[in-house]
């Protein structure tokens, strides 16, 4: 009984790390843009698809395919950021919602148009299972957990120590003042957006081997999984997002174990509602952005 619980909590952490990498990008974008990015899951899809193309069409080894996936996404994100996201700065929340919905439709269906809507099999990655302290999981999942921790350490360091990170924090707190002191808000927004999209792409490319199939519409589910996490984590809060992702992963795992898998998708929102009733600003204060 007790070991079941331990195992399922660990399972939850394994899935939580996937959510964490996607969600942190979204929360950073929210920080600087104040816009819910309904297209965020699409960058996850682009990362996975980019890697798939690299493996299938160019015969690249998996690590190179991950890099290609991220690079392709970065280029697309820069274009989207330059054309669309920069214009959202200072616009109403409604504009942000409509624009990102539009971007999601375009990206998703452009991939379907180019590669066909069917699901594709992803070959690559390290899928052999390993046993760590009696707990079995695919090597790829170990890699995901390690990358997740590294990403968060790097992000913490970046926003605390580098100029670019400090600028992001500044813009997320007060874009107007940033203009006054000479920070190029548009540039910071573009950088943050591209970084967030790349993190989503990284997550997509890393999970593709364990998720086996990739398809154009795969991002939508991720978007809706990520939304409750970033709210729970306190919008724009990097550390909070990490813990919120883990909480969601564990809660989902426990629901699948003790209640039923069919209720899994509701867990995120049910948890969110409970959390919000108790703490209307999320578990982790939004005051401490990044």
């Amino acid at each position, binding site marked *: 009984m007790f070991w079941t619980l331990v195992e399922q909590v660990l399972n939850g952490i394994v899935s939580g790390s996937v959510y964490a990498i996607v969600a942190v990008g979204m929360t950073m974008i929210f920080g600087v843009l104040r816009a819910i990015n309904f297209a965020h899951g699409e960058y996850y899809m682009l990362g996975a698809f980019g890697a798939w193309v690299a493996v299938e069409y160019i015969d690249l080894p998996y690590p190179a395919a991950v890099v290609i996936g991220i690079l392709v996404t970065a280029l697309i994100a820069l274009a989207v950021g330059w054309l669309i996201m920069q214009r959202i700065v200072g616009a109403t929340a409604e504009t942000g919602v409509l624009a990102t919905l539009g971007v999601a439709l375009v990206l998703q269906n452009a991939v*379907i148009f180019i590669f066909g*809507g069917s699901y594709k*099999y992803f070959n690559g990655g390290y899928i052999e299972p390993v046993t760590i302290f009696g707990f079995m999981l695919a090597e790829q999942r170990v890699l995901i957990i390690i990358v997740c921790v590294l990403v968060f350490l790097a992000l913490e360091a970046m926003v605390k120590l580098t100029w670019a990170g400090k600028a992001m924090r500044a813009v997320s707190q007060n874009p107007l003042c940033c203009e006054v002191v000479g920070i190029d808000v548009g540039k910071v927004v573009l950088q943050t957006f591209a970084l967030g999209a790349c993190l989503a792409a990284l997550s997509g490319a890393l999970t593709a081997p364990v998720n*086996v*199939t990739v*398809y154009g519409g795969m991002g939508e589910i991720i978007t809706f999984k990520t939304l409750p996490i970033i709210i729970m984590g306190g919008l724009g809060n990097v550390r909070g997002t990490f813990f919120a992702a883990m909480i969601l992963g564990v809660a989902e795992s*426990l629901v699948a174990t003790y209640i039923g898998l069919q209720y899994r*998708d509701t867990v995120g929102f049910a948890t969110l509602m409970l959390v919000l009733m108790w703490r209307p600003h999320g578990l982790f204060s939004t005051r401490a952005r990044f």
Partner: protein
Amino acid sequence: MAFHIHRRSLLAMAGIAGAAAVVGPARAHRAEDGTIRIGLVAPMSGPNARYGSFSLRGAQLAAKEINDAGGVGGRKITIIPGDSQGTPTEGVSALRRLIERDKVDYVIGDVTSGVTLALQPIAEEANVLLLNAASSNPTITYRAGKGGMKWTYRNYPTDEVRALVVLKYAAEQRKLTKFSVLSVDSDYGRGAIAFTKKYLPRFNASIVTEDYYKEGEVDFRSVLAKIRDSGAQGILMYGLADTTPIIARQMIETGVAGKLPLIGNGEFNAEVTIKAAPRALEGAIEAAAWLPAWDNPRSKAFVAKFAAEYRESANNHAYVHWETTHLLAKGVAAAGSVDRLKVRDALSSIKYESAMGEVTFDDHNQARLPMVLLQIENGAPSIKGAVSGEIEYPRT
């Protein structure tokens, strides 16, 4: 600014209005060139496009084959797609457009049962033949044919017979009596399990855990660990083709593979699936309406052509739409006319030689489909018998 209107904005508005006005004119003419127009309603955008895409490609391949062979009585076939996005509202819009604008006489569709149920009354009203090839909700045929809706035909199995045969084999040949359920959360997954439950007492079998996964779900570790510790001897799975390899791989991860076989339906036999996780699929039992490895020249030719044409391997959705298009063409040929009523009557009495065997329709316009029971042995499907039986319709 916002209240100040430039000519440019007026022009932009006119442009959008113009796009909307396309709704108005542009009426298609009923095929004067004698082409047979077949509408295909399926999800072609958004997440559900991953199923609709195979449907369209299957049907288009069939049309190409038929046309290359000279068409039906000299008439060519065109497949006209209509996007349903997997929602009833969009599906109805697509069907109405196909009927009125594109002047189709026959429609194949949809994949999602909820959409098909909404299409049925529209086809009925317009007297257009609706040939379903991928929805498993039993209600669709309960209310077709003798049930009232004369224009709906279904060339896709009802899961009652399938559920019974699979359960019988698992219980009698493999001596499995305790099952965990891990099916897709749809009318197909839930319906097949409901039928299975009906027959459990007959084999002294029981269900120990019951879980349904949402379409697009990718994380099964928790539920598989639960199943592993539940004392079940097999996993009853009526699932989706693209999810089976994901589950199979996580069965290896969680140590379920090799202990609990998969039992049910979900393209367990596909080469790609087995390749993804050979250890998990070994010993799997499946009742399939078709399998790529089926030893039949037409089937083999289809698999080869599909792979050559589209650079991907055919799946069940592709096959059923390919076969259904051929079936419809045969129906038109048998009727000797494109008259819908004659084609409908021809379908009711057709004896169609499919790649799997003879297909006929019962008085509920439901196809009696030959199915096979197979078991995965040494990484390849091995045929264990035929699946047959009449459907019991509820008395109303």
